[in-house]
């Protein structure tokens, strides 16, 4: 297991280097530091001196990869690439283009992102699995057909529609919850009710269908027939045996997203005024703050890789037959 983990982590390094190189090339070769400076300083009364000062203050006045004017190792460390990209590997994200410490911002914004993403994930998973099990239980009946049709309808609707429709009905017409906003501590609950419910409903159609398909695949297996032959109730068969055996395909889709929960949701955070990492990324993209975007891309890559490793580990947890070589 340990050897496997180490190997996976070593595999991650070239992937992250590749991601880093790609983002560096995109952000620094396509969009020059001069462009960044102009974007940050605006267009009113900006002088070439101000642009030079801006670049110098942020280390963007250095060469990209090799500093011929430096000596020894500084030839490679006193460069934009080292300062802006290599340091990401030790999670030193540096400062945003408007001078804020990115690492601190990320730590502050993780909480609000999790506050919405975690309930949506946990309650959603529970709701989707229950709905799928229900449909499987009533398979080949009118209820199953109606459920599948409802799922197709639900998954055909854009998340934007759920958000705007939910805000209109729940917050505007019925005035049952704040339409947007956030608060600290327990006061955040009323603000989270609507986005969490909408988040669950928005994923209900696609996820329920997916889990239903998985469960139906399992229902034809011999162990199910054996369980029934033992006289187990259908509910016990479904939850005690089918669900457990269907865990591997479920985990494939579920565990990989767990680390990414920290990154939040771009759409939900923006519409509901949740001050999480999703809105941080959107703001950075809109402001062309590439220091933040680069950090978030790197963090996203790391968390995705972590999700994949976790998925592999979870296989062994749910299926004792799986062994890591």
């Amino acid at each position, binding site marked *: 297991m340990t050897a496997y983990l180490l190997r996976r982590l070593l595999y991650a390094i070239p992937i992250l280097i590749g991601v880093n190189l790609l983002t560096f090339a995109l952000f620094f070769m396509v969009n020059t530091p001069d462009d960044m400076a102009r974007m940050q300083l605006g267009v009113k009364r900006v002088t070439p001196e101000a642009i030079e000062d801006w670049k110098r203050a942020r280390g963007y006045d250095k060469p990209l990869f090799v500093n011929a004017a430096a000596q020894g190792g500084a030839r490679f460390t006193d460069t934009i690439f080292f300062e802006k990209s290599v340091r990401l590997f030790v999670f030193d994200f540096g400062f945003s283009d408007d001078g804020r410490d990115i690492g601190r911002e990320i730590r502050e914004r993780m909480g609000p992102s999790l506050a919405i993403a975690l309930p949506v994930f946990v309650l959603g998973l529970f709701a989707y699995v229950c709905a799928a099990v229900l449909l499987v*239980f009533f398979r080949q009946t009118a209820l199953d057909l109606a459920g599948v049709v409802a799922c197709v309808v639900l998954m055909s609707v854009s998340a934007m529609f759920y958000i705007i429709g939910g805000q209109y009905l729940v917050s505007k017409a019925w005035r049952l919850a704040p339409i*947007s906003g956030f608060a600290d501590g327990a006061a955040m609950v009323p603000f989270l009710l609507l986005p969490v419910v909408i988040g669950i409903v928005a994923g209900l159609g696609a996820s329920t269908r997916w889990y239903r398909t998985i469960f139906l695949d399992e229902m034809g297996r011999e162990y199910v027939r054996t369980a029934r032959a033992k006289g187990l*109730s259908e509910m016990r068969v479904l939850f005690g045996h089918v669900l457990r055996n269907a865990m591997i395909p479920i985990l494939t889709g579920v565990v990989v997203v767990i680390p990414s929960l920290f990154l939040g949701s771009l759409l939900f955070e923006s519409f509901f005024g949740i001050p999480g990492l999703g809105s941080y990324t959107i703001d950075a993209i809109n402001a062309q703050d590439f220091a933040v975007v680069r950090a978030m891309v790197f963090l996203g890559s790391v968390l995705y890789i972590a999700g994949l490793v976790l998925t592999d580990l979870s296989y062994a947890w749910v299926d004792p037959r799986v062994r890591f070589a």
Partner: protein
Amino acid sequence: MPASSDVAARCPVPRSVLPWIGRWPLATLLACVLLVGCSGPWNDPYPDDDRQVRSQTIYSAFSARPKHLDPARAYTSDAYVFVGQIYQPPLQYHYLKRPFELTGFAAAEVPRPRYLDSQGRELPADAPASEVAFSVYDVRIREGLRYQPHPALAVDAAGKPRYHALTPGELSRIHTLQDFPEAGTREVVAADFVHQIKRLANPRLQSPILGKMANYIVGLGPLSERLREQAKSLPRDAFIDLEPHAIEGVTVVDRHTFRIRIKGKYPQFVYWLAMPFFSPMPPEADRFYAQPGLAKKNISLDWYPLGSGPYMLSEHDPNRRMVLSRNPNFAGEVYPSEGAPGDREAGLLDDAGRPLPLASRIVFTLEKEQIPYWNKFLQGWFDSSGISSDAFDQAVQMNESGDIGISDEMAARGIRLQTSVATSVFYAGFNWNDPVVGSGGKAGPAERERARKLRHAISLAIDQEEFISIFRNGRAIAAQGPIAPGIIGFREGEAGLNRYIYDWVDGEPRRKPLSEAKRLLAEAGYPDGRDAKTGQPLVLYLDTTAGGPGARSRIEWYVRQLQKIDIQLVPRLTDWNRFQDKLRQGNVQMFFLGWNADYPDPENFLFLLYGPEGKVGRDGNNSANYSNPEYDRLFEQMKGMDDGPARQQVIDRMVEILRHDAPWVWGLHPVDYTLRHGWLLNSKPNSMAQNELKFHRVDGAARAAAQAAWNDPVVWPIGLAGVALAALVLPAWAGYRRRERRLGRVDARGSAGDAR
């Protein structure tokens, strides 16, 4: 809304319920939420504010976090919403009077310049600009002004700064500015204004007005060079101490007076003194924030301002909300007792003489999307709102005579509509150096005249009135020249008519017919849109950064406008950075841009077409690269003149030259529509003032009553949802039971039998 503890006191939990709570934590949580909601509107977005706090609070919103709060750097409207209330520059605009009038803010009065010749001899006040070598402004500040409480100004018993040498131990306990246990204050003195002007030259701050001010303030440019050299020799985050550096043209006269010497005669300089760039800044602030480790904790002057204005930033979470609270040390300013005609009748002088600020607290909530913002305004959670295009029909209606007014729905809620023409201009520019549409590179006068007629034909064909009607819901006025209404030099009515594009008919401007555009096009050498010599169709290129579906329809509209005179317009969509590159290199033919005035003087608009401000080669603000020797000469004359008939005459001539040459398609001046609830008092649009919130007041009782009436929760959907869920679950449960019974797998208790 009462705090949750109040609710608990009113709804004590019976002991018998406690085990139930342990078994059903989620249901308990939901029940708690509902119980808390019972005590007031369920959709209340301010659960922490009690009734007393609310009655003194203005609730507003912001859509984007301000980039900078340092007064040397802030230069956007997003930032001015906050910076304008926190800092106290020497001057301000009178809140009520129109046209805009400067008054003292930190300064006791508006300083009058003394003019000196090159020998240092004093000249009369009406000396022509050509004789003036220097202008000297003595700014006398009011005594007794004090800074907001701030740890940078905290001192110990010996009078030494308390937090200017933070130890690692102290630093480890500090995470925000509020973690400093002590705060201090001191009097604002003249030296603080001098220090702030030196800060404009600090290369670490990249002040946007350094280039402009270095041209005027004596010694600012050399100071900037010295500091830049010093910065190069220091580590990137090392402190640059400005105190040892002197600035030749800015000196302290006495404790409450400082002197600024500027080059030549520049009457517009006083307007700059009304901007936050010239607010006082204690040197202690720079020393405090420069301490190692604070920047890493995001504790900087750019994040935690230190001002002497009416408000201070008491809560700074631009990801969620920002709160301004009354600066307890602000005193001495009262609500004005004079205003413009009609202000008294409108109740705008009812609070005359009352100490400012009138509201104790202003809460700004981040609202990025229009829909939540608009709905919260309608529910009474925000005191004012703009009107998005989507909400326009709901908010505004046109009466039979064509006048725009508030809709019946809004009027029933006591909402008022306020409109004001923005001191801005949006235009489509022609590149003066372009071989087709420009006249700059043309060999002879005949060719220049042909290009001029082409520009006029295009200007005529683009029906601004239609554009305003379709795309701005009528919220703009067609521009007759570069100067916006409300600015000195702007002429109303027929006197301000651009006669190249409009006729004056029945007391209003009427666009000349399209046949005139076609005639001009033919005279320009393009009859029916084709080059008379080659027979090739005339194809023009429009560079634009506009993206998205709304922008696409606008661009298509422009294409159709030129199709009316058989010109093919090809839009070239480009990102902002490439667009700026193209402008700098002159690789554009036509382009869209706009300008918001910094101050209410025509110089602030007319310089946009001043030759030496050309974009190509000089990186100036004249993006059209327009150049006309007569115009340039008049501009240099006009900017040094005092306001009066003589100056107006020069301005009229300059505007006439521009209308004749048509370097821009004169676009539009936006009209800002703002909706305000009836409980928000003393509100009057002022596009120049950035500190108007101190004049606003709320009728807290009226607001609380309206919020309660408008936000009564509708609970039947919850019951309906419960019934629907039951209707889904019960048949399913019954079906399950039936099936299990049929298969004989349910025991007598209804639970699954275990066959093992």
